């Protein structure tokens, strides 16, 4: 379709300037010169830096991606390790707590038992001492009473001549005793 139009235009043309298909050699020469100069300058000024930059960037991206992948794997590994360590530490601390709790429990029981025993011993000792003191005091009293009785008897005998008087003495003596 396009060529039809072109041909129609060509057929319609053909004035003083010549047809559309007339080739101007000067234009061809300029095209060659322009294109080759453009190619040479662009090769140096543009294509080399641009293409190397693109290649470099592509390799950079590839490298960084690989590095990122590696870093991610490493981080994952470290995380897993940390989690394992944490779990282990938790278990350990739990064990320690359990142990110390059990130890405290036994210690408590032992202390209570010991103190109970001690208290009982103190009470026993104290009651024993009291018994002993009571016994000695009783013995002493017994001795004193006997002595008093003897001395009373002695006095009675000494003053037996006077029954009245002896009776008074005994009363008086007894009074003294009770007072004591």
């Amino acid at each position, binding site marked *: 379709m396009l060529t039809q139009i072109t041909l129609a*235009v060509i057929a319609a043309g053909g*004035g003083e300037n010549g047809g559309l298909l007339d080739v101007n050699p000067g234009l061809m020469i300029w*095209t*060659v010169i322009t294109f080759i*100069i453009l190619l040479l300058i662009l090769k140096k000024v*543009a*294509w080399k*830096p*641009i293409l190397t930059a*693109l290649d470099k960037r592509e390799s950079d991206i590839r490298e960084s991606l690989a590095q990122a992948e590696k870093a991610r794997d490493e981080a994952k590994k470290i995380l897993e390790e940390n989690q394992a360590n944490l779990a282990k530490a938790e278990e350990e601390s739990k064990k320690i707590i359990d142990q110390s709790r059990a130890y405290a429990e036994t210690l408590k029981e032992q202390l209570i038992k010991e103190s109970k025993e001690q208290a009982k011993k103190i009470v026993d000792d104290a009651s024993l001492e009291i018994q002993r003191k009571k016994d000695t005091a009783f013995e002493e009293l017994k001795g004193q009473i006997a002595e008093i009785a003897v001395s009373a008897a002695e006095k009675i005998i000494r003053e037996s001549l006077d029954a009245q008087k002896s009776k008074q003495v005994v009363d008086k003596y007894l009074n003294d005793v009770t007072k004591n």
Partner: protein
Amino acid sequence: MAASGNIDTLKAVSDTLKTSSGSDSDWILHHVMDGKEIELPFLGYIHIPQLPPVFGFDITPTKHVIFMWLAAFLVLLTLYLVARNYKTSLIPRRLANFFEVLIIFVRDEIAEPTLGKAYKSFLPFLLTLFFFILFGNFLGLIPFSATFTSNIAVTATLAIIAFLMIQLGGIRHNGFFGYFKGLVPHGIPMWLLPLMIPVEILGLFTKPFALAIRLFANMIAGHTVILALIGLIFFMGTIFIAPVSVAFAVFIYLLEILVALIQAYIFTMLTSLFIGMAVHQEH
């Protein structure tokens, strides 16, 4: 090819051309053809001074030469700025960002698939070809400018350069005799050789010929159609045809933007493909 979807417009144009055959359509030719003067908007014409002929050739720069230089300068400037961006950092910014897309497109979609591993040595040539044609095509879309890629002399020269690159690439990779021996497919009976050799040699030349004609015809067609559509208003002698003409002209203009890109791509793609065929003859 891109314009084939618009058969109605083309019919209208060919009708126009038929009715206005003769000297009436000279103004269309005047617009699309080369000339010795440059038209400036609202200022008139600048006449290019005549140079003395060199070796019998008239080398006076014409309108198309001037616009070719302008395109070459713009390509150079743009890509220099792009390259400067990469010198400071590998991160593309602004202009570089846009042109990087095109450069990578030429590299990854044109050069590498057609040339294989040998693409690196042809890449500067293909990139230059692509951007030169691209800028030329787009430059032609600006009002008051000229499309030097719609000149058969320019497209033929570009095709000749492509042809030389194809032959050089083939000879460099396969050796001089190896390349020309490889042109004829293997396993052909001896008695067919007298037929096959001329056919293959003819095939060598039809490829660049097709390249030249394709670019020339595609670039000239859009402009001609737009001019014809606008001319329709004057041929009909009525203003009521103007909205239709302008609407179609805008449509063709938009189509031309597409064609400008596609033709630069096709020229580069086919050149790359032919170089690839010359380099890898076994396929």
